[in-house]
């Protein structure tokens, strides 16, 4: 029977339905048709059958912060290569940041992105529009048309909104169009021309530092504006301990704030840049042990709602140079699952929490489909082999770029099968069906 996939004997982890047990999942015509005890359904014929003993079956992962680079910087990534990397990493959906060339500050760019994404067919792509025209921090972009064209959120990511009045107006006006406002929190007069975390290592390397307060001051401003306007805000790529304290306090107060961090902020410290390693250069910069510990704690206690990769592809051209001239950012789609699983193996997170952070919560925050294995829902499903060991190598990378500080790392656990609306987008080869 066409359009039928039968996932047998996997550990189904579906926090939205309170399920964490061995179940069979039946997919028919792109939707979840049944989630039942093994042996309940008759043997299926004609479709694809996978025995997933020892593997996890979870709602399709959603990365709410990626840079797909198209239009404008196709030498770094295209929508096709970026979404293929997403599928390879276990993601069925990504939110695409607007700092393309041109900036996604109008419906034409949004429509273009969606058309390219549909053509590629590897993942759902949720365009994120700009807050300001050209992301130049002066005038509001056309939120209404962006929303109509398919944008789900707005941000000037890559740059902060320096003008507090503009940020206030963005929060207010976004409410007319049901758009989430995402904050790239950085006080530029403090971070200006910095290349790494401020501190002793920056001093030793002779590099200009970005102090943690550069992030925290802006996090506080945006929390205050969200509180003041009564509008929700999402804080992107949180990297410091004090930012997390501020967010925790705001949540306690009832401010509608959600927040994400990236795997590198709970895996690496600033030490990764020693020796002028531009593959570990990013903004916000890698911080200290204390910050890493705080990020891990915040993932556990709910201060952080999501893990997003901030997937930022760059060519060698952008990275193989003097450290302070090199581009910021690393690719992340293909390492997010194993790096998060490290926390699970270290008992810092449980599997259910991991699924919340990588699927349930991003769907809820963005207001998009997914995050659930409910019967009738679109069959966006990720199968994870939590034991599979591999060395993260350049040859394995599906992204067009190779800029990762995790190259050569021995990792454990990866997505082995990715299903988008009942269609396999990654991993079928590794199974005999």
């Amino acid at each position, binding site marked *: 029977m066409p359009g039928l996939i039968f996932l047998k004997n996997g550990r189904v982890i579906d926090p939205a339905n309170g399920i964490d047990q061995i179940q069979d999942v039946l997919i028919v015509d792109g939707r979840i048709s049944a989630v039942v005890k093994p042996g309940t359904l008759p043997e299926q014929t004609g479709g694809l059958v996978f025995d997933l003993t020892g593997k996890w079956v979870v709602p399709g992962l959603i990365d709410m912060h990626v840079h797909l680079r198209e239009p404008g910087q196709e030498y770094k990534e295209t929508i096709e290569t970026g979404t293929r990397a997403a599928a390879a990493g276990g993601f069925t959906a990504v939110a695409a940041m607007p700092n393309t060339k041109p900036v996604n500050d109008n419906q034409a760019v949004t429509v273009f992105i969606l058309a390219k994404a549909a053509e590629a067919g590897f993942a759902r792509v949720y365009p994120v529009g700009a807050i300001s025209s050209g992301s130049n921090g002066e005038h509001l972009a056309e939120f209404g048309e962006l929303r109509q064209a398919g944008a789900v959120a707005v941000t000037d990511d890559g740059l902060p909104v320096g003008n507090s009045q503009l940020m206030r107006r963005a929060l207010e006006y976004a409410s007319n169009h049901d758009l989430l406002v995402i904050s790239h929190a950085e006080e530029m007069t403090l971070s200006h021309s910095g290349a790494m975390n401020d501190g*002793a290592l*920056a*001093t030793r390397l002779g*590099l200009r*530092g970005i102090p943690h307060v550069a992030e925290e001051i802006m996090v506080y401003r945006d929390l205050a504006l969200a509180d003041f306007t009564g509008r929700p805000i999402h804080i992107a790529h949180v990297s410091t301990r004090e930012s997390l304290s501020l967010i925790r306090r705001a949540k306690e107060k009832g401010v509608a704030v959600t927040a994400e961090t990236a795997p590198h902020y709970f895996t690496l410290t600033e030490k990764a840049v020693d020796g002028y390693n531009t593959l570990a250069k990013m903004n916000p910069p890698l911080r200290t042990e204390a910050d890493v510990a705080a990020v891990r704690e915040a993932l556990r206690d709910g201060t952080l709602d999501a893990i997003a990769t901030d997937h930022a592809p760059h060519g060698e051209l952008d990275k193989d140079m*003097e*450290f*302070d*001239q090199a581009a910021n950012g690393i690719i992340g789609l293909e390492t997010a699952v194993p790096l998060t699983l490290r926390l699970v193996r270290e008992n810092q997170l449980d599997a259910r929490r991991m699924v919340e952070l990588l699927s349930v919560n991003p769907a809820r925050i963005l207001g998009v489909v997914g995050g659930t294995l409910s019967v009738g829902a679109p069959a966006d499903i990720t199968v994870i082999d939590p034991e599979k060991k591999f060395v993260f190598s350049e040859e394995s990378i599906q992204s067009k770029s190779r800029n990762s500080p995790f190259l050569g790392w021995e990792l454990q656990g990866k997505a082995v099968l990715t299903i988008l609306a009942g269609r396999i987008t990654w991993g079928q080869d590794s199974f005999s069906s």
Partner: protein
Amino acid sequence: MTSEYRFTHKHVLGLADFSVEDIQAVLQTAESFKEISSRAIKKVPTLRGKTIINFFFEPSTRTRLSFEVAAKRMSADTFNISNSGSSTVKGETLIDTARNLAAMNPDCIILRHPRSGSARLLADHINASVINAGDGTHEHPSQGLLDLMTVREAKGGIAGLKIAIIGDIAHSRVAHSNIIGFSKMGASVTVSGPATLIPPGIEELGARVSRSVMEAVDGADVIMALRIQKERQQDPLFPSLREYAKFFGVSQKVADAASPEAIIMHPGPINRGVELDPKLADGSRSVILEQVTNGVAVRMALLYLIMGGD
């Protein structure tokens, strides 16, 4: 130094990479070479046939000339490239330019560059030896070594001395190399200046920080004033040169707080009357010109040790 000791560095990127034995080897070699510069015929054949490129991306009179004089006194062939004359102004990257230079088979490239880590980047991409002649705000190892040599000559040793470095520590690669070098050799280093010019974590390089210049120089054997780099000051770091001179300049009063035998140093070029009283710069306790003389000897030693030493 044990008899088995050998200087094995191919590159000179920073004093952070040097052991105490390495530093001693350079200083001893430099001391033995110093005499060459006072001969009537100031030339030895040691590095005959070696090719050395001076690759300078920042203006420099003293350091570039010092390296060139050092190389020529050792009979090496030297070539100079400055930023304005190089293809980097046509958009070529540092790595590409370096690879092209390397294709001409030089034995050593001496790099001065405004970006921290650039010397290391060069060393990672070419086969020739690289000497860092100052990279951004990171290190300036040959300056650190010539300062060590100058102090050792004047004081008979380094261990146990009190060194006070006054001024812009944050933007000074000279300060970084000196803090590392002097503390490795057993001196105690105290830095002072406007708090805006004291970088975070400088203690981890080996320096003590004092908020008061007078306290920093109290009983010091060496006072080193650093150049205020006016061209680097985009930040609001201090109110005016006038106020800087008044509160952070090395004046007679400051010098009087140090040991009576204290020597006065400055890596040059001096902003006279800003960071250093001209009378001190030219006075009997000043070893500023001795630093320049020793610079040639130290650079001869470095060239010899990385290219001719076997």
